[in-house]
């Protein structure tokens, strides 16, 4: 774990896990570390993002800047200082 701070934008459907906030700042040198810090102590939130094998669920997308982290090395992708991650899930409403 590192002390580098990462801003994570949280979509509306997941804000209940973070006290209603739309973004949070957590430490993390990789995507996995940042998401682990985000979900620390909240099994339901962790299960929402990760499979039992520790992979990102297919219906959850994470972007570093504007790019999908799956194209940047996945959960092990390194995060530059001051990085912004965007969590995204499908919205249904119309």
């Amino acid at each position, binding site marked *: 774990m590192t002390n580098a701070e990462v801003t994570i*934008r949280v*979509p*509306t*459907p997941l804000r209940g896990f973070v006290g209603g906030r*739309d973004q949070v700042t957590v430490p993390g040198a990789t995507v996995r570390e940042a998401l682990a810090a985000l979900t620390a102590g909240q099994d339901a939130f962790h299960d*929402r993002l990760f499979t039992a094998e520790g992979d990102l*669920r*297919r*219906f959850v*997308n994470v*972007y570093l800047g*504007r*790019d*999908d982290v799956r*194209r940047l090395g996945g959960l092990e992708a390194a995060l530059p200082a001051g990085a912004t991650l*965007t969590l*995204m*899930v*499908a*919205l*249904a*409403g*119309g």
Partner: protein
Amino acid sequence: MSLKDRRLAELRARIAEVAATDALALQRDGALLVDVREDEETATGSPAGALRLPRGFLELRIEEKAPDPARPLLLMCAGGTRSLFAAEDLLRLGYRDVRSVAGGFSAWKAGGLPVEVPPQLDAAQRERYRRHLTMPEVGEAGQHRLLRSRVALIGAGGLGSPIALYLAAAGVGRLTLIDDDRVERSNLQRQILHAESRLGQRKVESGRTALLDLNPTIEVVSHDTRLEAANVLDLLAGHDVVVDGSDNLPTRYLVNDACLRLGVPNVYGAIFRFEGQVSVFGGAAPGVRPCYRCLFPEPPPAEYAPSCAEAGVLGVLPGVIGTIMAAETIKLLLGLGDPLAGRLLLYDGLRGEFNEIAVSVDPDCPSCSAGAHPELSDIATVCSG
């Protein structure tokens, strides 16, 4: 000799003239034939494939149609006189090879050369669409294109309301509304297509009433039915663009897969509380534009999907997202600008921010990758309205 005759004699000495039959040959070789007569004159017939640009607007608009000053221009009027004046104007503007068609349209017609009757806007349409007609990006040709266009709209609800109203106002010639709900009072906080006076009506009928009240010159086709695997291809076939304003994930996957099958672009939008997403999927050669499954390969299981009724949405939010969807639809119909494809626009209403993320073509996409031929299926409902 009158002043006019003297001037014409001067022009004939300087401006190259070409016989109608030769003009046809030159047109087929790439020259631009420009009919400079007034709209009333060209209404009954004009050379096939000619650019119709009345002399009064010639210098103002010719560059939009003929950006290359080296391209030969053949100017035509009724009898070959006004085209001499017009030719001189274009030579002065900077075109290098400008000729006048001797005998004008009279000679063209007498020679049995190909003529077409251009589609016409009537006086009421000219008035209605004036702000489009004066924009070079739309103009008369673009307005005709909109009038010939067919758009299918999934959902006559929150997103569907502004989309349908703006597309009807813009003169999209045929709008197909697909929805199986009735109008309820709780809809009226955001579904501006409907009204207190039409509570209880089928949404597609209420919508049809509102749209024809706004623009009685278009056609509105209503399908009071739920989109399913068994009917989706029939309902969406024959449209130029499909706009997905549905309210549930199963329909979104079904619309995506059907649009890929039909090769029709899918304008996507979705909303939740203060947040919205917009993008354009498919409708291009394989591998060029991503589809909805490139972004979300599979829906979340039912236990992770919010209940739609509990979710709530700020009433104006579908207005923000729906109008962007309408703009993207009109851009696609007119071939204007850059479609919002390969990108997902995210709107955060509380922060007042738009952000954009990249959506790439997934080479392993179960729907749009090479060789994929997805079965159209009704996924179990994950949000039951």
